[in-house]
């Protein structure tokens, strides 16, 4: 192994396919899909969504509650509470919803009378993810809440890597979190990219995305710190690439050159070649444009036989959380030695010419790639590895 190598010493996950790693693996094995009509708030939009069965409420914004659930798992595995006073611990979390003051009940009241209770504003102000998590654990490193739309979670991990490389801190808690909310539900419906049935990533008959919610968090650190702490991690983050399409506010550049650039940068950082990648956890939202662009890029860079999957069929599109959740799924694939079927996929789309995993597949190599695309033309890629 060469190039960058930052040990992953803790992971945490909560999504519609499980509130922890064990539940997630059971969902992957049993091909379980929890998509149904939204129940968290009243809605006339009759498209399936993927909700989390959140058992604990800390009376924060739901996004922060989700984040804290995942962070707790990761912090526990990484044994950070025992050493937090000895190291500079940064927190970098991606989100979309927690960055916006968009409480519709507050605004409805304000619109009606010019007055509204300020408690929902306080909840928003107290729920800046990086700030709240830093305070919750009394960490003393840099903190950054990334609002880079649907690549936010991936970019948060990438920023964590940059901080470690530039010696801004020793350890980073990073990933993404987002809740299901009426604003993106209405917004994606208005854009005409939501499916009224369960999503079918990369399928010829895909009709669009399903929204979801959740959080995925990883703890990464400098290798020397990990050794000093006697953490015996066998999994690493090796590279990150980020590029901008400079093309369109909501659609990816059709030739995929932006995504290619991000992937090539991540490969360069990891000092590996495309043929070293054993599988790709694709963004795979199940929209016409996204899947076509990703498929084109995978075929061009990795050839027609690369193993790739979309896990959106299990979780829905969790927006700012997606990159964090899928980073955890990618690490789980390397750890468990298998990746699940790309659920929802049935028929090959000849315009893409590639098919994702139809069934559970053994992971043979060392390296895996996770990709994210976003509004604004962002393309992000992370490379993970095992010993």
């Amino acid at each position: 192994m060469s190039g960058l190598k930052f040990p992953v010493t803790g992971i945490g996950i909560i999504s519609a396919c499980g509130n922890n790693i064990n539940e997630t693996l059971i969902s992957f094995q049993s091909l379980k899909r929890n998509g149904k009509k939204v129940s968290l708030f009243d809605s006339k939009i009759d498209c399936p969504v993927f909700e989390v069965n959140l058992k604990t409420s800390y009376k924060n914004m739901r996004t922060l509650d989700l984040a804290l659930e995942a962070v707790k798992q990761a912090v526990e595995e990484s044994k950070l509470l025992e050493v937090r006073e000895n190291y500079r611990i940064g927190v970098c979390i991606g989100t979309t919803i927690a960055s916006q003051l968009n409480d519709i009940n507050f605004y409805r009241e304000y619109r009606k009378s010019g007055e509204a209770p300020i408690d929902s504003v306080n909840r928003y102000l107290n729920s800046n993810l990086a700030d709240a998590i830093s305070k919750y654990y009394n960490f003393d490193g840099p903190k950054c809440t990334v609002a880079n739309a649907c690549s936010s979670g991936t970019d948060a991990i990438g920023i964590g890597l940059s901080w470690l490389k530039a010696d801004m801190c020793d350890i980073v808690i990073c990933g993404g979190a987002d809740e299901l909310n009426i604003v993106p539900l209405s917004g994606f419906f208005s854009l005409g990219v939501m499916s009224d049935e369960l999503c079918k990533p990369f399928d010829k008959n895909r009709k669009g995305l399903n929204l979801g919610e959740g959080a995925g968090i990883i703890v990464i650190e400098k290798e020397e710190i990990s050794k000093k702490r006697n953490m015996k991690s066998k999994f690493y983050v090796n590279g990150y690439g980020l590029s901008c399409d400079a093309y369109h506010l909501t659609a990816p550049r059709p030739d995929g050159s932006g995504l290619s650039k991000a992937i090539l940068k991540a490969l360069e950082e990891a000092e590996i070649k495309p043929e070293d990648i054993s599988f790709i956890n694709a963004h795979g939202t199940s929209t016409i444009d996204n899947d076509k662009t990703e498929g084109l890029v995978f075929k061009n860079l990795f050839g027609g036989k690369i193993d790739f999957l979309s896990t959106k069929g299990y979780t829905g599109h969790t927006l700012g959380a997606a990159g964090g959740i899928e980073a955890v799924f990618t690490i789980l694939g390397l750890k468990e030695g298998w990746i699940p079927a790309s659920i929802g996929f049935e028929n090959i789309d000849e315009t893409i010419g590639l098919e994702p995993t139809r069934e559970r597949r053994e992971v043979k190599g060392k390296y895996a790639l996770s990709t994210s695309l976003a509004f604004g033309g962002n393309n992000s890629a992370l490379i993970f590895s095992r010993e």
Partner: protein
Amino acid sequence: MNVKGVGILFNRGKGIEKLENSLLKGFALPENGYYKISQELFCDELILKNMRRADDFSKLVAIAAIDAFKDAQLDETDKEDLGIIFATSFGPHPTTFKFLDDIISFGEKEASPTTFSHSVHNAAVSYVSNLIQNRGPTITITQFVESFYQALILAKSWLTEKRCKNILVGAADQYGEVMNYICNKKLKLAKDGKIKPFSFKKNPDVVPGEGAVFLLISSEEPVKYCKIEIGSDTKKDFVDLCIVDTDGMSGNEEFYLSLKEKYPLFASYTPIFGSMLTSMAFSLVTGILMLKNQKTYSVPVEENPHNIPLCNKTESKGINSIACIKYNCEGKQMKILLSKQ
């Protein structure tokens, strides 16, 4: 980090020359108790013709960013991998509320897709990338009062790891009716329309404002404006001037009293711009202008109950370094050092 380009749009106009002009003219009372950028100032036709559907927040950001980009006069070869880091405390909240208006008035199935796509925090820099046609890393972050400071930390990280050589780092926040209501509920709006930056009170006065600042910073020589150092790098204790970023938005400003004995001269220019959680970017640009021109500008509001040594003269002066200091709500200090070389 070297500053190669500066862009600014604020309530009195666009560009660093307009900023100097405003500093020379001094304090001006806001018209309605807040500083809002008038529509006439969104006047760059070359930029705006390519973003006709954009909201004001995106226009605000694009005008300041392109201003800094042009100022830096980068080679065409450096453009491709130019990075962008944009920090905002609240993002395009008027656009978000407009989208909520749609949902409430017409139902969630009838909301505007254009409004939705502009309500996302990073829509603004998407326009900037489109205008510049850069394909490098582009990030939007939000960290309330620490937004711009954290953006600089990330910029330093990217330059150190050589992710890019040149980065547009900026900050923007927008005024809005709902935000004014929230400021009124949570903070103390100034009855006389005046920010008093040296009151250092527990409950200081606020005059909401809006604006955008971008810097083009680079790892490469030569130094065009000045150098920037952040946080723990700022080992130099002796500086010619300390700009305190006090505008009431972070609440308690008593923390600043502890600085009184540490610096020879103090200034604050927040009354020119209005109160914003990203105001540190505006204070920093003022410091950059001073270093470039080797000139101090008299503070716009001189009320000085604690008798701290104030910069109350506009005059040519040899300035080597300026500290720009802000405290967050819990009293944690953020310090940026500007130096001539």
